[in-house]
């Protein structure tokens, strides 16, 4: 029998997005007929969604109301803890599933070597722009990602550096046992990158399942309530923190350090204040990053090897 899935959607006041995404999801779960769970975690801290969902989708969606807004990672853990199914599917409110997306994901998770999977996440439905289909590499001492154009005809699972947080499936208990996302990266962004890199370095796999397709209307949630400069700052700070957490060779550290030093010089001379702020934010969290790094323990793969293994173009 197919494994049951607990679908958890951490949400802010995303009623307009949920209006579009929930019906598709409900249809999919009903079609699968495996008694899957569907939970929306109201992370507004104001109980805005329960009554609305009860009226729109009576008896079909469970709503968990958080007393205060804790952010995406905490809301996901809240929903995951209250689930009972073996698998946990995390979805963003702005992700619209396409029919038949769920079964291939569940099937891929049968392999215990697979840590997590993501459907092919098409940015705004554009088949040429799969958010999941990217590689990560260290270029000039900086951790960067490069979008790749997916092969639309291939249906074979593809290794990817990390499962996209807005549409990822993990084993629920394993995810909870690992403590969910790293709180170092709060309030948002790069938690999924860290999760994927950790999985790869531990000898596991993260896959994109092309036969499972969803659409992502990117930053439709956070971007609506948080100023762009804060979103950008969170991204750039977390890029550095994740890099520091996973740096594992003296050569790489030296190269990264030189690049960062040069960036700081350039930003200082060129009056590029925002870049200085991003760096300062990351450097303020250096101690926490070191602690997080020490919690990783021994790894089976180096960062470099992990990035190579996770490269979709080599898959």
């Amino acid at each position, binding site marked *: 029998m197919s494994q049951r899935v607990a679908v958890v959607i951490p949400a802010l006041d995303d009623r307009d997005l949920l209006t579009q995404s929930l019906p598709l999801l409900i249809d999919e779960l009903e079609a699968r007929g495996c008694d899957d769970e569907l939970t929306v975690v109201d992370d507004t801290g104001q109980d805005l969604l329960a009554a609305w969902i009860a009226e729109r989708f009576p008896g079909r969606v469970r709503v968990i109301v958080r007393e*205060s807004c804790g952010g995406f990672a905490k809301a996901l853990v809240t929903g995951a803890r209250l689930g009972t199914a073996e698998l946990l599917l995390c979805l963003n409110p702005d992700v619209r599933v396409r029919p038949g997306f769920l079964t291939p994901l569940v099937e891929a998770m049968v392999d215990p070597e697979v840590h997590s999977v993501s459907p092919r996440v098409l940015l705004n439905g554009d088949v040429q722009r799969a958010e999941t289909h990217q590689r990560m590499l260290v270029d000039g001492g900086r951790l960067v990602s490069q979008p790749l154009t997916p092969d639309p005809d291939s249906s074979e699972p593809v290794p990817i550096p990390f499962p996209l947080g807005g549409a990822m499936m993990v084993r629920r208990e394993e995810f909870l046992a690992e403590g969910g996302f790293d709180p170092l990266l709060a*309030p948002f962004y790069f938690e999924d990158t860290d999760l994927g890199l950790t999985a790869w370095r531990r000898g596991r796999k993260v896959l994109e399942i092309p036969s499972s397709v969803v659409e992502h209307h990117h930053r439709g949630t956070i971007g609506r309530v948080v100023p762009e400069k804060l979103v950008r700052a969170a991204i750039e700070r977390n890029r550095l923190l994740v890099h520091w957490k996973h740096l594992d060779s*003296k050569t790489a550290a030296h190269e990264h350090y030189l690049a960062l030093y*040069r960036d700081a*010089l350039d930003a200082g001379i060129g009056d590029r*204040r925002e870049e200085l*702020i991003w760096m300062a*934010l990351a*450097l303020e969290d250096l101690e926490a990053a070191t602690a997080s790094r020490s919690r990783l323990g021994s790894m089976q793969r180096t960062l470099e090897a992990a990035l190579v293994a996770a490269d979709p173009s080599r898959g």
Partner: protein
Amino acid sequence: MRIGIFVHGLPPRSTHGVESHTQAFAEALVREGYSVEVLAPCCLPGRALYSQRREVRGSGYGVTWVQVASPADPRHMARAVGAFLDRERPDVVHLQHMIHLSAAAIEEVEQRKIPMVYTAHDFYPVHETLNLMRPDLMPFECGDLEMQARVNQARGFLDKLSGLGDHHGTVLLDQPGFADQLGEASAATLRAILDGQRDGGLEEARNEVRLRAEVMRETFAKVGRHFATSGMLARRLGSALGRAVELRPSGIRSDHLSALPPACSHGGPLRIGFIGGLLKHKGVHVLLEAFAQLDRSAELHIHGASHDRVYVRLLRERAAEVGAVMHGEYSRGELPEILAGLDLLVVPSLWIENAPYVIREAFAAHRPVLVSDTEALRESVRDGEDGLLFAQGDAVALSAALRRLVDEDGLFGHLVTGINAPLSIDAEARAYGQTYGDLVHEAQVEKPLPVLPASVEPFAERYAALEILPTRDLFEKVQSGLEKLGTCMGVAQAPADLLTQAVSSGSPTRDLLLDHDRALEWLRKSLADMEHAREEMEKRAGWFQEQLASAEKRAQWLSQQVDHGESTTGVERDWLKESKQDLEQERDWLRRQQAETEKTNVWLRESLDQAEQEAQKMREWAEDSIQKAGEETEKANQAMRDAAAETEKANAAGAEAAEDAQKAQEWTAESREQTTAENEWLKETAEELRRENLWLQEKADDGDAAITAAQASATEATRALAALGQEREWMRGVLESRQQELRWIRERLTGGAVPEGEDPSKDHAAIFAAHEALERELVAMRSHEQWLYTELATIASILESQGPGSEALVADELPRALASMRAAAARSMGELVWRRKEMLAAREGSDRLLARLAAPELADRIRSWELTPGPPAPLPPVVDPELASPEEKESEGLHRSAPDGILSDDEDES
């Protein structure tokens, strides 16, 4: 707290009063613990327009120089100021002077929500002519925009005249001792312009003045607090700007001046001095004339310079004539030495003046000051106390004042003694520090906090804390963090090594600079090519010119040949005509070519000029465009996002507002009804309360009366009770005695003889009846006594119950109890009377019986029973007919008419 100061110049580049004061003020702020960054314009050769250079002064404040053109382009200046603000992140901006910086700078500050303070030193916010001085050295009123327009027109006229040099907008007309600078015609034109009798350009000048005034008014309204350094300036500016301008005098640094040797301690002639710019409105020529008229031994020392070469030359010539010494330009550092060489200072200003620093500096050096008698200078100098005033522009009056100082014994010493210590620059810095603190506090209170998800707030707070740091602090923080990171990663290196490795491996900034160099090289080459092309074109134009001249000569010759054609053949004539036509065509073509070449040449010349200008601006443009492109894109994206969000918000807000308005209307109507009802209820309640109050007052009065009456009644009752007790005791003794006598009589009767004719049984029966009656009375008396006690207890309880709220009880119970008691007392009196009658009847019976039966000795004994008078009867109670009830009246009647019924019926009623 970080303070940004905007000023139009600073020493050593500019050493005038406001600039020098600003420097001292910045130093004082640093001493008070503030971080200070000054922004000042400059115009130095070889620098790109609006580029910025920062320097750090030894006293601990920074100065950023902005290269400006004159007049400054507001758009470029705004960007330069914006960059300064973003880099330095001041908490407050203090505007000392905005000339050359453009009012657009204020807009930039306002956009960043940084509080501003403005200190006015002149009339800049209202007039372009900062000193309100007409070109003919006559002052005009603050706010007189018509005169400002004429002044502008007049200055334009003066600018076109040659021979005036750097006239600073003024000329000397009819000044004694000075050559007339203008010819008769120009002077007449100038006067006509100032009188508004020359229209040329006046309307345009009016519009410009009006527009400037409006812009300035709006711009300066964005400044939080306005101060002026004199009361005169505060009043006039406040009136013109339509807002409060507070007086805050400037302080000076005086420590280097206070220890100078005393004035007039040298024993020589009086040393008169002038210190300041040699500008016409400063009135130095008036001082020279006054000195010329001073027929006393004195020296005149003039310190200062200006670019008004013509005026300075005139001053020098006149100074040489009158024996004054022109010392020329001086530096701030020389001021103590200059003041040490003077006994007094003269400020002969012809303008309305403000609050000259030099006066306070002279006072700090204990030198009295002679000043023109103006509204502003009267605030600085007290006539006859610490200086002397003289009529403005009046050399005779000034000369007389100087003569007084020489001639009047003790006057100079009196003035020196009267000098008060001027305000210190540190005190001024402290006062402004308080203002800065207030403004920052107000700004924090007013600043709306963005609504963010709670999970984002800690991150946003950290971001905000970094965002307010100046760029260099941010950079320092990052560098410090990088050192820790290097140690943590085990890759720490010596800074020099690190720098070498980092830069040698490439840098975007270096790439950018290389790009700029390449772009400049390309521009230079283009310029050279264009220059070459221009030369070629000029050569070509020259050739065309030659060809044209040649063609015209040939055409002229041919015309002459045609004119003399009679002598030529027809063929020759035709040839000549054709040749002439060809030549004319060639000439026209050449002319066209020449015109085209000329046009091309003009275009090339313009292009060349433009290219040169472009080359000058290239670095700035390249830097700006590359740097700003990203920012602009970012801003545009942000603006689009913001616009979308704002539209959404606006729609939502509109809907909410409409709903709120509806609710508000309903609520207002409801409230109005409620209020009306409430008002009615309040009126009724008030009326009820008033009535209740009256009723309570009446009750209280009644209660008081009742209490008084009850107390009197109680006293009476107690007295009556005591009398009754005495009577009862007497009665009891009498009865006892009667009983014994009766017993004796009964024995005698039963054992004795009865006289003849008498029926002893009859008397016997009567005696027995009397006896029984007496016994009944005794019982009744006891009952009555008990009843009296009960009544007294009731009265006592009533009296004890006197207190708040007992009025009703007193009013109801007390009269009734008193009436009952009075009735009872009346009844007792009736009974006593009746009993006496009974006893007398019994005695008469006994006497008769004794007379018949008893022996004489027995009769004597019985007679000895004569009733002794009882205790005095109590006063009859005062029965108030109003209080006594009909039943009580009736019961009194029963007592009297029916002694047998005593107490039987009344007991219940009472």
